[in-house]
């Protein structure tokens, strides 16, 4: 009995010893170096980083027509170890996607060392992807033996890319998004950070016990533009027609609401289908050509006389009825300024001065004001400064100043009628808003509102300055309207009183000498004069049809405004006054 108990105790002792050994071993393993590496490995495979993309914000016109949206495309790739029939995969990708059969077969039969996955194409459209998916599932259902046709290994991963439903419409304004999801030119570049949103990297557990809701990643802000799609389309049609009819090398038309600075349409040639931006290099030689209205500066010529006359009226040097004797030349800085036709126009008042676009008159006015007054007014009009319009690549323009070492008195004379000074079309329009808007110069802008997380932030109308008084602005506007009517300008539109001015400017060559055979021709006008609702700028570069803007730019302005008043629902002046009189 005793010996049995001692044996039982001995067995129990060994059991306890065994248990202790197990416990010690467990503790030892838990604290070993290998355990650390296993823990690290475990953590690595238990969690993985995933990038939550942020859907790029959409771009709409002012009536919420989508101008830029997103569409789904697929990345098609091959997981090499899952491929069962390399020949089928290579042949299918060759047939459906047009990929090189031999190249893919080589990749699949002799994969590079360490290769796991290979991307075949990142931007396969939904139709072709569906075709591949259908083939893959068909083969999976039909063939089950080794060596049978199989598309196993092919993978499809959806992602979004930019899409422009209206193709080239407003392309100069919108810009485009490249393969790296970066905005280029126009709105896409200027507001890239707002539109793109912020992709988030999150740690996602593979253990289903640890899964929680993924954090939300809001999409980029949507932008509502001031652009009116119908007006934009009409302007583009007229621009193409104008360029073709006049034989111009390029053209620009901008339509703005002068009360707010809202750009209703902006177009310049050439244009591009934004969905096919890979042709950018073929279409544009320089970046500035993408949107000439903003990025190209030119000598404005006679449209600049609007500003000189405004300065002279506002400074009190002249009134509309002031007269002078035009002898055909005016000496300033040792140089004689002559008129465009080299003729003397006799006694002229200030309306006649604008109507006949007399350089002699402008040089006299500038000289009368003096350099300080003249250049102070030009600076107030923003000449030589960026407007800071919300589009990329804005040209600043250039205006010599008496403080500059290369400035001379003759510059005062030539600057007065738009030579020796360079502006961009949008700069010139911004300056002219002061005349159409009771002396208030407004900030030009293309974005009406930004919509983000359900909140709408509207771009307010900003006054850039008041270079002239309301009275002076109205006076010059009426003078310009009178000049157009008296001169029976081709820009006039029946039923509407419009203010405006032509501009014909010689083009300086690389050596600074003006080319006698080439001109830039422009027309800038606004209306109705008593309550301006639109301002239109037309600029034709190097047209062959005529040497004068009154025969090139004015008819285009007329055609645009005739359609514009219909699209903007602006009745003729007499009916509008009846409505106002109610």
């Amino acid at each position: 009995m005793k010996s049995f108990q001692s044996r039982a105790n001995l067995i129990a002792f060994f059991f306890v010893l065994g248990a202790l050994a197990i416990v010690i071993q467990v503790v030892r393993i838990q604290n070993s170096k290998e355990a650390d590496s296993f823990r690290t490995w475990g953590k690595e495979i238990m969690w993985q980083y995933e990038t939550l993309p942020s859907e790029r914000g959409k771009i709409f016109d002012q009536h919420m027509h989508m101008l830029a949206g997103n569409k789904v495309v697929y990345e098609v790739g091959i997981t090499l170890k899952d491929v069962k029939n390399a020949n089928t995969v290579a042949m299918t990708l060759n047939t459906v996607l047009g990929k090189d059969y031999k190249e893919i077969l080589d990749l699949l039969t002799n994969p590079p060392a360490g290769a796991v996955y290979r991307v075949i194409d990142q931007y396969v459209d939904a139709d072709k992807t569906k075709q591949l998916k259908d083939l893959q599932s068909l083969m999976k259902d039909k063939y089950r033996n080794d060596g049978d046709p199989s598309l196993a290994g092919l993978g499809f991963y959806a992602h979004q890319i930019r899409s422009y439903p209206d193709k080239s419409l407003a392309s100069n304004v919108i810009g485009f998004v490249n393969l790296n999801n970066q905005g280029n030119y126009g709105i896409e570049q200027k507001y890239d950070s707002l539109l793109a949103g912020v992709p988030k990297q999150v740690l996602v557990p593979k253990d289903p016990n640890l899964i929680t809701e993924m954090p939300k990643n809001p999409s980029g802000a949507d932008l509502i533009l001031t652009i009116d799609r119908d007006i934009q389309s009409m302007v583009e049609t007229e621009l193409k027609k104008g360029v073709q009819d006049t034989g111009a090398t390029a053209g620009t038309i901008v339509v703005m609401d002068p009360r707010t600075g809202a750009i209703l349409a902006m177009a310049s040639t050439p244009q591009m289908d934004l969905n096919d931006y890979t042709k950018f290099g073929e279409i544009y030689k320089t970046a500035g050509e993408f949107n000439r209205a903003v990025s190209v500066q030119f000598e404005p010529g006679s449209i600049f006389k609007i500003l000189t006359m405004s300065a002279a009226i506002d400074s009190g040097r002249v009134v509309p009825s002031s007269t002078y004797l035009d002898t055909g030349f005016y000496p300033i800085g040792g140089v004689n300024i002559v008129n465009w036709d080299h003729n003397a126009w006799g006694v002229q008042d200030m309306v006649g001065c604008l109507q006949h676009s007399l350089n002699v008159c402008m040089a006299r006015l500038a000289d009368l004001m003096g350099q300080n007054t003249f250049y102070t007014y030009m600076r107030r009009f923003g000449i030589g400064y960026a407007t800071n319009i919300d589009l990329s690549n804005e040209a600043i323009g250039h205006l010599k100043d008496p403080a500059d070492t290369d400035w001379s008195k003759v510059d005062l004379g030539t600057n007065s009628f738009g030579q020796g000074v360079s502006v961009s079309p949008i700069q010139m329009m911004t300056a002219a808003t002061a005349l159409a808007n009771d002396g208030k110069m407004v900030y030009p802008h293309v974005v009406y509102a930004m919509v983000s997380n359900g909140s709408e932030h509207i771009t307010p109308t900003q006054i850039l300055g008041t270079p002239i008084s309301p009275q002076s602005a109205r006076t010059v506007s009426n003078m310009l309207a009178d000049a157009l009517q008296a001169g029976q300008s081709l820009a006039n539109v029946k039923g509407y009183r419009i203010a405006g001015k032509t501009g014909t400017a010689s083009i300086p060559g690389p050596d600074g000498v003006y080319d006698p055979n080439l001109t830039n021709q422009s027309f800038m006008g606004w209306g109705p004069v008593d309550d301006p609702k639109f301002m239109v700028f037309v600029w034709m570069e190097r047209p062959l049809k005529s040497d004068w803007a009154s025969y090139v730019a004015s008819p285009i302005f007329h055609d645009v405004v005739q359609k514009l008043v219909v699209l903007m629902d602006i009745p003729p002046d007499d009916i509008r006054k009846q409505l106002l009189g109610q």
Partner: protein
Amino acid sequence: MTILAELKTPKPQPQPETKPGSKAYQAVAEAVGTLRQYQDIPLRFQKQWITAFLALMILVGTVGGLYLNVVSRTVIAGREIQTLQDDISVGQNTNADLQTQIATLLSNDSLQARALAAGYVPIKNEDIGYITVPGYFPQQDMTTVTPPTENTDLSLSSDFSESLSSWLTRQIETASLPLAQEH
């Protein structure tokens, strides 16, 4: 006398017949003796032990089963979250795609082509007649629609966030609520 005292009090045990030298027999005899000792414990004590043991087993089993149930539900909920998130992603892609497709169908070129095919012609200034309607002033201001804010937080559902302890607490609280009085 308590159970413990009864168990501690040794009772004379009948000894089995022994055959000297047979160890196996001795072992069997010892086991039989132990069994007889146990049989000598009063029946009510045996029942109490068995009941207590069974209760313990049932409790452990219940808690274990409950734990497994909750864990499995958590896992299923986790997978559901993954599936829903995948569905959301697919839905967002489809939505973006469809919006763009609609925009393409309503694009300026497309609408113009359809309008011309339907026999419409662009209006000209001279075709327009204006009628003065007394007291009517058309709204000219730009208006836009603000899209609704997304607010679908999956974590709001207790199915996806409740722990075992909070579930138990909720069940106990629900069970302890007074019954509603009928009026």
